[in-house]
């Protein structure tokens, strides 16, 4: 299990490969589900140029760790990876990466989506968007279901 808050841009698929190479689970998993959230150049019909992501150092990591551990238990996962950007994020950069490894696909799919929903609803991160009509805190996330 790895949970990291990143100040610098990351490449989601290079991170997937790098983390997978560090594990000793080859041949043990049949399913990997992976979600990448990336920054779009528009939101609610406004052009967004960049945004700033704030977090609560300490609590954010702790909260994500709890989500990951509970998911490993519930879905019998072989591993979980969560990466999340903070700081100034530019259009098309990756914001979040969640990946889960399991024996069968049902567990990988369900856990990956559940982790994302829990992260979206509870992990202490806040986005402030710079749009063509000024800076604005995002008030709430789009529903996931």
């Amino acid at each position: 299990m790895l949970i990291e808050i990143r100040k610098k841009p990351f490449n989601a698929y290079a991170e997937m490969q790098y983390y997978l190479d560090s594990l000793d689970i080859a041949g043990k998993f049949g399913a990997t589900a992976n979600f990448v959230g990336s920054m779009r150049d528009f939101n609610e019909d406004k052009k967004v140029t960049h945004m700033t992501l704030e977090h609560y150092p300490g609590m954010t990591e702790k909260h994500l760790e709890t989500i990951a551990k509970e998911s490993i238990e519930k879905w019998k996962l072989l591993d979980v990876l969560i990466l999340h950007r903070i700081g100034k994020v530019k259009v098309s950069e990756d914001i979040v990466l969640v990946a889960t490894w399991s024996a069968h696909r049902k567990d990988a799919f369900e856990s990956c989506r559940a982790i994302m929903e829990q992260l979206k609803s509870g992990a202490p991160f806040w986005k402030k968007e710079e749009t063509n009509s000024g800076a604005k805190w995002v008030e709430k996330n789009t529903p996931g279901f």
Partner: protein
Amino acid sequence: MQVSVKYFASLREVIGEANSVVDIEEGSSVSSLWQSIMDRKNIEFDNVMMAVNMEYVKSEYQLKSGDEVAFFPPVTGG
């Protein structure tokens, strides 16, 4: 007793500070602390989320001396 209080994101901007140390009565709830802060700062803020020592708590949670209390708006990560 004293607790340390943190504010994040839009609430930090509304309050005008990120951290403070607040004197409260022994046995105060987190919501009474929040109410006293809103009164003192003369602000209204809906949907505040509350955490004590980096875990979410309900509004009736009873504070202890030295607790780290955090108030923040709905989270928007991911």
